[in-house]
């Protein structure tokens, strides 16, 4: 007699108990063991790519910086580098240096945020609180430079808005020195704490071949020994003058992903120091025409989560013809659904945070649910609503 095998599916989300952003996962399980995984995204889809087509080149910068709250600067960089190339202008060296400093500060901020969330998923809330407390150091530095903590909005098409004064420079150097000490301590914890290693060692193991085949990017790929880092492969901004050393680990498991992210930050701190001590003197901006010549450009940069890819097409008008954004989280999802198989259900939260997923990045209309039914709000309505709300 043939026994009928039924699949038991555990749905998780969209309101996820662990991650603070919405995503829906369906894990088919056999007892405790995961046998399959599917992912449904789009809960925070905002249609940003479409919106770019009806806004000017300048307006788009402000919108694209809001694709993601954690890595807002890097989206601005990918966009401005592309547009500047189309316009045929070169940004002054000091502006490039300031952009790069903020890029690396952002990487520190992002990885420390991730370390906290990952520690929390692993049940290690002390580490979560430590790393988030220390992360405030970087947030204060952002406030010092731009007046903003999250949306620093440092970029302009053709340069940067803020200069770094001698006094600010010293504060940044002091800040990163403090963080360096703290990061050494975190590195010790993640490599020696038995309880933590119990949750990470040999969990979510991905070989170099798998990582390459699945198209992993960023620290997720580098933790499997894949040499992929746009800063090294195709340097932009100040990276040609201040090269970064690629940080690799061969382990391929969660422990390796922790190690790579922490060690990368020592490299970020080194680069920040190097640029700050050699800060070139120049203007901060260059004039960029309002209409961008027709053409297309591909702009790749290394976001904290991996390669960020922009395809920008101009038809010669005041608005872009098409902007395609491919964020690193999108590449790394593929690795989760295949690595999950064979693991215990309890390991899933750790595996998910292991790639440092960013949902806002993936999902880019707003439907407001009301008692009388749902109502679709467009940009104009939302703006009106916002203005009236704050009056």
């Amino acid at each position, binding site marked *: 007699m043939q026994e009928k095998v039924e699949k038991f599916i555990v749905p998780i989300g969209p309101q996820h108990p662990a991650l603070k952003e919405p995503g829906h996962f369906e894990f088919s399980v056999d007892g405790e063991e995961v046998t399959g995984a599917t992912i449904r995204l789009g809960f925070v889809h905002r*249609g940003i790519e479409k919106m770019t087509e009806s806004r000017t080149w300048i307006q788009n910068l402000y919108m694209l910086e809001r694709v993601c709250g954690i890595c807002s600067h890097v989206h601005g960089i990918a966009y401005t580098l592309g547009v500047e190339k189309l316009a045929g202008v070169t940004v002054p060296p000091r502006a490039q240096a300031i952009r790069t400093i903020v890029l690396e500060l952002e990487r520190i901020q992002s990885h420390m945020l991730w370390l906290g969330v990952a520690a929390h998923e692993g049940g290690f809330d002390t580490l979560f609180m430590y790393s988030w407390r220390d992360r405030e150091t970087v947030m204060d530095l952002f406030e010092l430079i731009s007046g903003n903590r999250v949306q620093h909005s440092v970029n302009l098409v053709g340069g940067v808005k803020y200069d770094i004064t001698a006094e600010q420079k010293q504060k940044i150097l002091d800040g990163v020195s403090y963080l360096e000490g703290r990061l050494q301590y975190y590195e010790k914890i993640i490599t020696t704490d038995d309880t933590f290693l119990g949750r990470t060692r040999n969990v979510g193991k991905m070989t170099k071949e798998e990582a390459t085949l699945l198209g992993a990017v960023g620290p997720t790929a580098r933790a499997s020994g894949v040499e992929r880092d746009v800063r090294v492969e195709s340097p932009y901004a100040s990276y040609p003058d201040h090269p970064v050393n690629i940080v690799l680990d061969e382990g391929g498991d969660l422990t390796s992903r922790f190690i790579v992210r922490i060690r990368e930050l020592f490299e970020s701190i080194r680069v920040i120091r190097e640029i700050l001590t050699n800060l070139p003197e120049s203007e901060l901006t260059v004039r960029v025409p309002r209409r961008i010549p027709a053409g297309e450009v*591909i702009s790749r940069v290394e976001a904290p989560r991996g*390669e960020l890819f922009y395809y920008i097409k101009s038809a010669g008008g005041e608005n872009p013809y098409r902007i395609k954004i491919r964020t690193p989280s999108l590449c790394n999802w593929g690795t989760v659904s295949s690595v999950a198989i064979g693991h215990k259900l309890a390991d899933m939260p750790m595996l998910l945070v292991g790639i440092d997923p960013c949902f806002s990045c993936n999902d880019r209309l707003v439907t407001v649910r009301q008692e009388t039914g749902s109502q679709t709000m467009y940009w104009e309505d939302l703006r009106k609503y916002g203005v009236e709300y704050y009056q």
Partner: protein
Amino acid sequence: METEKLFTIAEALLKPWAKEYKRPDENRLDVYLVREDLLEAVEGLAQARWGYLSAISGVDLVPPAQDGTGENQEGRLEVLYHFCNSAAVLSLRIEIPYSDAHVPSVCGIIPSATIYERELMELFGITVVDTPVPDHLVLPDDWPDGVFPLRKSFTGFDSPQAQES
């Protein structure tokens, strides 16, 4: 130079299928193909392990304004498969007409392409033949059929495209 060497290899690999090569930029090589040759070309790149599929971009090429004859030209869609290898970016470009908007799935060769193909299907209305999961990826489940937000004809739910469906 490393990038030049990579492009020489890519050009040799793609020779049987390439209709035209263009170098828009020192780091870029655009190879124009016809749809029927896409899979073989991708297979060729994958077997030689030339880079990785970084993204698939769709572009809606609206027809130029009516020409002198007063005839309406049909719009076309362009699909770009971007492969990255170190600093080199290779784009395989295929153009397809609105009335025959389908491309073959490359998931058989590159499994991670599924997410990009789903995006292409729901946002541009390009049918990806034999793609493993044809469900919605980013649009809501109750999104009306036949409305493709990234087509230029879509300008909101009062647009003619949305009204028709």
